[in-house]
């Protein structure tokens, strides 16, 4: 098992290196001149040349690469043109909010998605299956930014039940910053008012973000359950009189989830994409929102750093899902 973990981590190294290379090359091989883009529309050739020199674009590629790797290792991505602070600092400060949001969405998606998928699979081709299928396929087809607006329209603007945007109501005194996660910080400070307020702010963005994942998890779980129900061991377990509930919710479920877990890891990418949109609509102070603003102002340093950071998180999440997968499936433990 330890060997498996080690191998899986080692296996990710070339991917991470590739990630560095791609982000490095990306800016340098696009047909557009990055210096010209950076300099803006009305820049003189001298200004462009100056920027080119400032960023090192006029040096040999290998030298640029060495410089780049050196910077990355030190988590130094330069200063953002958009916030005029160090990009690394900005990202670090905003990551907890994004994690807060994505984790909340992931929890919603998993807690609802797996049981829904099981119910649909067990009632294959009967009405519960039909309802779940229609809902899940709609969930995937729905544009996150649109449903976000619709939810805002209904729950924030019309009904006024939940806050429209942001992480915290204005006029509240924020708790001392420890983790940059408002929920955790308010808990540490024992500020229940802030905690409740933060939770209320979290509901709409988290629900919006969870929809796509919820639909996906439901579908994969359903497919896994359907596949597992075809297996001989289910027939055997019925023949020897396992109670039906335990059969489904323990013995079938574990097999079904195995197939779903790796898929969920792969879909984490679209989860992050969703976070980018949802954060910018709900004005959530996470890296997604930050990155979009930076990209809109052509802040290429932030672009690179965010791409790298998210790629890194994606890779880590996939290692994690592979490990969960292996943990669930003992057949993988001693595989060559």
């Amino acid at each position: 098992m330890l060997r498996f973990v080690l191998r899986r981590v080692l296996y990710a190294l070339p991917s991470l290196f590739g990630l560095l290379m791609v982000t490095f090359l990306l800016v340098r091989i696009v047909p557009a001149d990055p210096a010209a883009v950076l300099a803006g529309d009305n820049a003189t050739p001298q200004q462009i040349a100056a920027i080119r020199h400032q960023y090192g674009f006029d040096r040999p590629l290998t030298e640029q690469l060495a410089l780049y790797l050196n910077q990355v290792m030190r988590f130094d991505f330069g200063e953002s043109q958009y916030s005029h602070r160090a990009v690394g600092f900005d990202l670090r400060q905003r990551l907890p909010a994004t994690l807060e949001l994505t984790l909340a969405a992931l929890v919603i998606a998993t807690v609802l998605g797996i049981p829904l998928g099981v119910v649909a699979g067990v009632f294959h081709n009967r009405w519960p299956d039909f309802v779940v299928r229609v809902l899940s396929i709609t969930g995937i087809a729905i544009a996150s930014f649109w449903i976000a607006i619709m939810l805002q329209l209904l729950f924030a603007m019309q009904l006024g039940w939940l806050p429209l945007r942001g992480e915290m109501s204005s006029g509240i005194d924020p708790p001392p910053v420890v983790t940059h996660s408002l929920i955790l910080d308010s808990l540490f400070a024992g500020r229940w008012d802030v905690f409740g307020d933060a939770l209320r702010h979290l509901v709409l963005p988290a629900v919006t973000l969870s929809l796509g994942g919820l639909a996906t998890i439901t579908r994969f779980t359903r497919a896994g359950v359907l596949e597992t129900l075809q297996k001989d061991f289910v027939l055997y377990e019925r023949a020897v009189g396992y109670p039906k509930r335990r059969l489904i919710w323990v013995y079938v479920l574990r097999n079904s989830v195995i197939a779903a877990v790796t898929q969920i890891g792969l879909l984490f990418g679209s989860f992050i994409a969703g976070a980018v949109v949802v954060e910018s609509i709900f004005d959530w102070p996470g890296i997604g929102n930050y990155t979009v603003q930076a990209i809109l102002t052509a802040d290429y340093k932030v672009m690179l750093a965010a791409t790298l950071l998210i790629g890194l998180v994606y890779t880590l999440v996939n290692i994690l899902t592979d490990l969960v997968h292996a943990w669930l499936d003992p057949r993988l433990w001693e595989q060559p």
Partner: protein
Amino acid sequence: MTGTPDLLELRDVSVRLGGQRRWLRPSVAPIQAVAAVSLRLRRGEILGLVGESGCGKTTLGRTILGLQRASDGEIRLDGEPVGDLSPKQARKRRKDIHYVHQDAAAALDPWWSIGRILEEGLAIQGLRSAAERRARVDHMLQAVGLEPGTRRRYPHELSGGQLRRVALARILVLRPRLIVLDEPTSGLDMSVQATVLNLLLELRGRFDLTYLFISHDLSVVERLCDRVAIMYLGRVVELAPTARLFARPRHPYTRALLAAVPRLDPHAARLSAAIEGEPPSAGRPPPGCVFSSRCRHAEPECREVMPELQDEAGHAVACRRWRDILPDDRHALAAGACDGPKPARRLGLAQ
């Protein structure tokens, strides 16, 4: 050695599987799938290759075909060495040898019709004329006893017996001389097996074929094959003409195998298990004789050296004690694997 050489000759052929070191992954322990096997196939004969699952019989078949490269030893076709080639070249040199898979359904592309599948082999051989391809395929479909209409059908529409015929026809249009048949009757009911086996016999005469018949079914081998080789853990432990092997098996493993076949005869004494346990893994064979770990006649010396396959009057056996153990075992074998007319035969009263 005079006259024409044997069709196929294997000398000390060994095949090791796995064992490679892999990048970032634990290396795979090597498995000696085939160990120093020597065999001759004479023109027109049917040689049975018998053993239980995992004994290396399929690997040996694939090695003969060239799809698996032998790690050691020599393979001669018509006296010419054809060993030690890459799979691609090996297939070119050994185009007279063909292979029929055990699972006939899975060996056919599910999207292709039977007619296209059969013609494909001819196209690969460079037969340009579509009309001639068609004619040869129709002819062969008829030869294996399928309706001409079969050419328009798809694999999933045919029964198990029909699929075996298609698999045979597919190989036969290529005009092979030696066919490696991998468990051609497994999974077929007794009543269907017969038609396939009769077809094999008929085709052998008609097309001048030689068969290497890989099987675990002793009753089929007994009636079909001219000679039989018994394999255990990658080694041939006994090799003899069929009648002699079934009448007087020498190797304790062969005798255990024969005794294990459940017999119809209700008067036959119920035998207790002749051997205990299950074969050890091919990755960790016991020291000395590969069968020593399960052999009740094994002596300490048996666990030291693997005995060679030694021929005596055309009956070869790889056991150092076969002479000692033969007589005392007569009674245990009385169930039918021994000499004389089988007791069961006396009941043959149907039809």
